[in-house]
């Protein structure tokens, strides 16, 4: 990996001033920034090659289609999917999970069971809630005391039978808990369940092939891996994807259409009705190529180091409580401050030029399991520096002091 100054030059957005201070962007779990090469790729596509894909025979359509299908191969290669697997482009993780959950509804009957964990993002909870509501299946929510999944309970549920689907996050967007996916997917699949991993936060961390993790489905969003918004992926084993009833019907996903009926095309088209976000897919491929060129393992290691450093520095602040103590943490950590509402803290920290996330993080049951309703979150990416973490910690301390003065009085 090149040195940090060189890397930071690739990200034009990072070099700006906000409120007359250098921007310190530590909200990478919400979205990551795009490097110059991705921005250029997007622009180039629109300047030179833009045309709808799989539609025309003219030269631009051919170029556009070729880039789109090449992007699919790039994603497939990046994920380490084998020959028996396929990449479906979606609009993001949320879309991917909805596609899977809706598509599997017809495979469930009353009494069947679906497992998620309490640390799930709402995107990996609500689609399964509805699936269970419409199919009569039961939703089991795995407790994660102190941010670590309860594996004993998990094995217990699996051994009781009738678990058809297990849907777990790879890395929690709240606590940064790294789920032991290999360890959890094996017994699930032995028990006959399909295993879906929400890789939104995990893909920058884990470099092993998805096949090795034991997934049937794997979902992620382009905008959390240096790509643009509005593009995401549902990767799946072909036999798992074949199970899915298409959520969306329309152009591009059919073979023969008559007035009263249609026959569907094969994968991946069957699950990609309508004009796909091909420019997003092309830019996403550029983002993944950029990550590969930096060396994925080194990117992941650097992010781990930054997070460990942040955890150490924050732990030293009296009255600051980090949520959870998982065995392995990646990408993000969340915390509360005695006497300071997260909303207040984030407002003030923002004026120091520091972007943290505050609120519920789309994970209300996860927060509730820690007995809080809101928290602050710090999530570094490899393009952040240790000095930036120092500045953030200083700003948090000053914010705390500012509020303490007033909470003592009232």
């Amino acid at each position, binding site marked *: 990996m090149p040195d940090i100054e060189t890397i930071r030059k690739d990200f034009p957005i990072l070099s700006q001033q906000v409120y007359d201070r250098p921007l310190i962007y530590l909200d990478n779990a919400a979205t990551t920034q795009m490097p110059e090469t991705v921005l250029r790729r997007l622009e180039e596509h629109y300047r030179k090659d833009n045309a709808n894909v799989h539609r025309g025979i003219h030269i631009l359509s051919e170029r556009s289609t070729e880039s789109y299908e090449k992007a699919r191969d790039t994603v497939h290669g990046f994920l380490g999917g084998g020959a028996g697997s396929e990449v479906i482009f979606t609009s993001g993780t949320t879309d991917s999970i909805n596609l899977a959950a809706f598509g599997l509804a017809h495979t469930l009957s009353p009494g069947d069971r679906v497992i998620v964990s309490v640390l799930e993002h709402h995107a990996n909870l609500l689609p399964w809630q509805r699936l269970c509501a419409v199919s009569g299946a039961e939703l089991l929510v795995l407790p994660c005391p102190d941010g670590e999944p309860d594996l004993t309970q998990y094995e217990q549920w699996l051994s009781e039978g009738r678990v058809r689907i297990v849907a777990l996050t790879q890395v929690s967007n709240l606590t940064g808990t790294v789920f032991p996916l290999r360890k959890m997917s094996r017994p699930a699949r032995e028990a006959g369940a399909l295993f879906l991993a929400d890789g939104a936060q995990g893909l920058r961390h884990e470099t092993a092939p998805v096949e090795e993790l034991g997934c049937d489905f794997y979902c992620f969003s382009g905008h959390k891996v240096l790509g643009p918004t509005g593009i995401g992926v549902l990767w799946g084993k072909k036999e798992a994807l074949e199970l899915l009833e298409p959520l969306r019907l329309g152009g591009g996903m059919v073979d023969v259409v008559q007035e009263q009926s249609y026959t569907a095309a094969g994968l991946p088209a069957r699950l990609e009705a309508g004009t796909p976000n091909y420019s997003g897919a092309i830019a996403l491929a550029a983002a993944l190529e950029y990550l590969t060129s930096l060396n994925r393992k080194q990117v992941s290691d650097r992010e781990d180091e930054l997070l460990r450093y942040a955890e150490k520095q924050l732990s030293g602040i009296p009255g600051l409580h980090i949520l959870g103590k998982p065995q392995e943490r990646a990408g993000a950590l969340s915390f509360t401050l005695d006497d300071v*509402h997260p*909303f207040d803290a*984030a*407002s*003030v920290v923002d*004026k120091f030029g520091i972007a943290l996330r505050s609120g519920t993080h789309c994970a209300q049951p996860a927060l509730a399991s820690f007995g809080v309703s*809101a928290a602050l979150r710090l999530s570094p990416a490899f393009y952040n520096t240790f000095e930036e973490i120092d500045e953030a910690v200083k700003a948090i301390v000053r914010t705390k002091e500012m*509020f303490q003065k*007033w909470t003592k009085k009232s």
Partner: protein
Amino acid sequence: MDEKELSIAEYEQTFIDDLNELEDWFLQYEYLLQISADLPRIPSERRKEENRVQGCQSGVWLEMAYTDGRIRVTADSEALIIRGILSIAVDLLDGRTPEEIVSYSPRYISETNIKKQISTDRFNGLSSVVDTVKQFAAGAIRRED
């Protein structure tokens, strides 16, 4: 200075001037925290879903009454900066006649940095606080007629 001798708009102007004189965000926050200290708390048992203001990311509660020809208003929030903003609204509206309230249109948000605070933090409920009080005042006038 007895603020009740000022019209709502005149009194509001003092807040606008105070805030706009403070050149940086930190001083403006200090100002809001300072005035929030004078706003009475709504005890947790009276913070109910019915009087919770919709659209606020951090909880906001509003209590209103109409007695002796005056509207009584108080508000509370878990977040102190929000409490500061609310206490301006409460200072302006509490103890006014319904007629004064219905003809008031707030400027302290649009003419100060508070508008930026609101847009960044999605504190959409703030304008609905004033709207709710105005509706309550309009209801009081209708009942009188």
